């Protein structure tokens, strides 16, 4: 298939110079595209590119989006655009009767990518050109060389130019009889790129006939590998921080209800789940009523999730928990019952299956810094976790509500004597903890299943984080979450996910022997009272 494409693309370059000569080529191309066979469609794409048909771009784009239709009877090709269907060649409106979409599989998709890449190398928009160059780079097709040379000659943008040079190097290395000297300099270019794609190309040269090329490739591979090994540690640290923020988010509400108030809140996970379901509801509403707001769905969901989970929290506190102050172990039993009820309630209301929560555009994709690949979603979660942490600290340390909360939890009777309405403080503190858990649910909906079981997956980890950090200490929770996250991620590559986790649990058990009150324990005479 590759050789076939080579020939066709060479032909296309000629066609660039002589557009008129390709008219008949387009006929065959359109005929082949109107087919049910992937091989035909693939050949059709190649033929279309060669033909230099001005409609090639729109047709290929329509094909990617499943908007290219054909009629099996008369092999007519049409493009669907919203409600209107027009003939692919003439642009005239056609009767949509009997039209079927042209099918696409991975093979066809790759062919389209390569074709569009070549087509777009000269696009006016720099970003498109860069994507095109990237596509050509991935295609590693020697036939793209002339197009690349042409594009390189015109290119002014430095970044795009570098990508094109890399694409050219990749294409050159794929060309059978390229001069050795050029191949060696291409290897340098590829090595400088230094990512896993580059590694793939260089490793592919291990069977090259020329000794010097083999050596250079091997040097390149080891060079990239050394750098990647170094980067792996940084990458692990980042993964750890990101896992740590997830743990922090999951645990921070518990640090209030359990850590500050002393309630062994087994329904904490369900508060997180409620937050996630609130996100789902917000997105559903937006999808139906105001799709343009989709990117705002998370900012909208955050306060709503806080209110929803907080309200449920206050309800639970007023109806059940307030009867149980001073009996911490019994709060465990009651909240366990509540968690069962909440799970089943959500299951009855929304069904047992996962609900779809989409990622807004700024949460998807990844970017690279110094060879470190960072996904936007994770980055936002880290930022969000830290923001929640800071906000919570401010509430507890710098507001009169926080002051009263601390007063009530430290000495209930004294606080009551000083005129603080302890029942309200209790209710709102529990509401705050639950609300924060709900907010965490918004973030977790981005990376995990939104199902009735969501909360169960985090409850044990949350308790471990709070206890490891030291009950009643928010900073302890922060340090514990990040420590566990990073440790987990450094263990995982060596011990595997399961053993890593087991080792960590054993570590926590042993650590608690050493410091029976966690990382940041209070000291002094009051402790044992």
């Amino acid at each position, binding site marked *: 298939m590759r050789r076939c494409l080579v020939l066709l693309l060479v032909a296309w370059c000629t066609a660039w110079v002589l557009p008129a000569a390709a008219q008949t080529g387009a006929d065959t191309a359109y005929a082949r595209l109107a087919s049910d066979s992937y091989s035909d469609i693939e050949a059709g794409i190649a033929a279309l590119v060669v033909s230099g048909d001005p409609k090639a771009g729109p047709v290929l784009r329509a094909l990617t989006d499943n908007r290219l239709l054909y009629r099996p009877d008369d092999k007519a090709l049409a493009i669907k655009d919203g409600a209107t269907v027009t003939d692919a060649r003439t642009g005239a409106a056609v009767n949509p009767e009997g039209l079927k979409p042209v099918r696409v599989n991975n093979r066809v998709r790759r062919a389209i990518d390569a074709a569009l890449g070549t087509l777009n190398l000269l696009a006016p928009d720099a970003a498109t050109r860069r994507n095109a160059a990237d596509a050509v780079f991935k295609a590693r097709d020697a036939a793209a060389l002339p197009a690349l040379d042409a594009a390189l000659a015109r290119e002014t943008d430095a970044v795009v130019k570098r990508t094109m040079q890399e694409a050219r190097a990749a294409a050159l290395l794929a060309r059978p009889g390229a001069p050795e000297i050029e191949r060696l300099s291409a290897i340098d270019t590829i090595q400088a790129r230094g990512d896993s794609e580059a590694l793939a190309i260089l490793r592919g040269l291990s069977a090259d006939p020329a000794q010097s090329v083999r050596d250079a490739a091997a040097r390149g591979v080891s060079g990239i590998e050394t750098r990647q090994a170094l980067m792996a540690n940084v990458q692990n640290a980042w993964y750890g921080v990101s896992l740590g923020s997830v743990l922090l988010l999951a645990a921070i509400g518990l640090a209030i209800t359990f850590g500050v108030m002393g309630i062994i809140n087994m329904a904490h996970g369900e508060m997180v789940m409620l937050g996630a379901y609130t996100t789902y509801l917000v997105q559903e509403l937006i999808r139906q009523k105001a799709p343009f707001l989709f990117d705002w769905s998370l900012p909208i969901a955050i306060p709503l999730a806080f209110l929803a989970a907080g309200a449920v929290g206050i309800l639970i506190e007023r109806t059940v928990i307030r009867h149980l102050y001073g009996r911490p172990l019994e709060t465990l039993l009651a909240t366990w019952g509540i968690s069962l009820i909440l799970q089943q309630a959500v299951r009855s209301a929304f069904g047992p299956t996962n*609900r*779809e929560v989409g990622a807004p555009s700024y949460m998807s994709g*990844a970017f690279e810094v110094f060879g470190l*690949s960072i996904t936007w979603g994770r980055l936002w979660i880290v930022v969000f976790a830290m923001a929640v942490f800071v906000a919570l600290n401010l509430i507890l340390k710098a507001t009169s509500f926080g002051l009263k909360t601390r007063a009530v939890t430290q000495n209930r009777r004294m606080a009551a004597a000083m005129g603080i309405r302890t029942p309200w403080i209790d209710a709102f503190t529990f509401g705050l903890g639950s609300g924060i858990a709900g907010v965490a649910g918004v973030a977790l909906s981005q990376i995990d299943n939104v*199902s009735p079981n969501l909360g169960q997956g985090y409850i044990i980890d949350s308790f471990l984080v709070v206890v490891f950090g030291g009950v009643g200490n928010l900073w302890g929770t922060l340090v514990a979450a990040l420590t566990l996250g990073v440790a987990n991620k450094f263990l995982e590559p060596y011990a595997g996910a399961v053993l890593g986790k087991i080792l960590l649990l054993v570590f926590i058990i042993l650590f608690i022997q050493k410091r029976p009150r966690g990382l940041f324990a209070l000291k002094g005479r009051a402790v044992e009272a």
Partner: protein
Amino acid sequence: MTWKGWLSRAAVAGGLALGTLASTVASAQETIKVGILHSLSGTMAISETTLKDVMLMLIEEQNKKGGVLGKKLEAVVVDPASNWPLFAEKARELIAKDKVSAVFGCWTSVSRKSVLPVFKELNSILFYPVQYEGEESERNVFYTGAAPNQQAIPAVDYLMKEEKVERWVLEGTDYVYPRTTNKILEAYLKAKGVKPEDISINYTPFGQSDWQTRVAAIKSFGSAGKKTAVVSTINGDANVPFYKELANQGIKATDIPVVAFSVGEEELAGIDTKPLLGHLAAWNYFMSIDTPANKAFIEKWHAYTKNPKRVTNDPMEAHYIGFNMWVKAVEKAGTTDPDKVIATLPGIKQDNLTGGTSEMLANHHITKPVFIGEIKDNGQFDVVWKTDGLIPGEAWSKQLDGSKDLEADWVKLNCGNYNTKTKKCGGA
């Protein structure tokens, strides 16, 4: 005072539930009972609840047609709550206390293993609708899901042929199905000339939610200059975070395709599938398959659930086939007596929803077509390949040392593990 109101409401609700129960019991005269043993709570509720619903629909429909043997069918639903010993207990309750004629149920292998002794002891019939690891053929169980040769091996064949894959990541959740499937695939790939260093096998725990490290590892395994694919036997819950991480790290199907055996329409309903375009799944049924039977089935399903968005999936079709086979067998035998029904079932044919006719085989597995589908952006699959005819399910894998000499035949040999070498029933 809130609790008092709440309490009274709970009491009313409880009373109502008991009341409806009593009324169903009262109206149930001369019925044939059918047990439904699917988890409605706990971790597996996510997959199994749908199967309970589809069974209720099939039973209702059969009753509209006049029931079986002139009697109405009555569904007995219990909740084994994703708790494996509870599966055995509930199976015992269904058979011994409720006297059901057959049970449709189980999803996980461990739940099936847990109820097996009960079905053997009390001599009843279980229809098991989920693709599984094989290596089993029991007299009392009918396997309407895919055996490994009806799912895993065709999928790998497709990837080798169509995508020219040379390097394989076998990524699975650490339990029996992935372990066995990957053992079989590893043996198969090696027989096809794949070098051991081109196969990477990895297992993660249930409910794995942080996939950053694994996806990065897959990415780097895929950068060896050879076309790489992932064969995923990751179980239910862990799939969503896995696919979300794949999308986030920018692994597209055109770079490293992932073919999954446990991801169907139901699982995709919880994910935004746009970034997953082109990743694959191998099943014996897809909702998107355009046949009149399938269309009718989907319409009935939407009407029954009063939800035009509910999807259908492979295990649902398996229950459809299994249930109809059971009905035919009971009609043919003229009785619900388990021994007679078990003897009648092999050879029963039933049109499946994808245009073929499945047949119950002597090894208690059925013939099925195999489809490979690519994930589309609407959460459905586009069938890109299918087997020419129907593939008979193999109880014992030819790829494993322990089982390559075993054969299951309940018709001629009356044995589930006949050793063709020693000519003895019972394995050895």
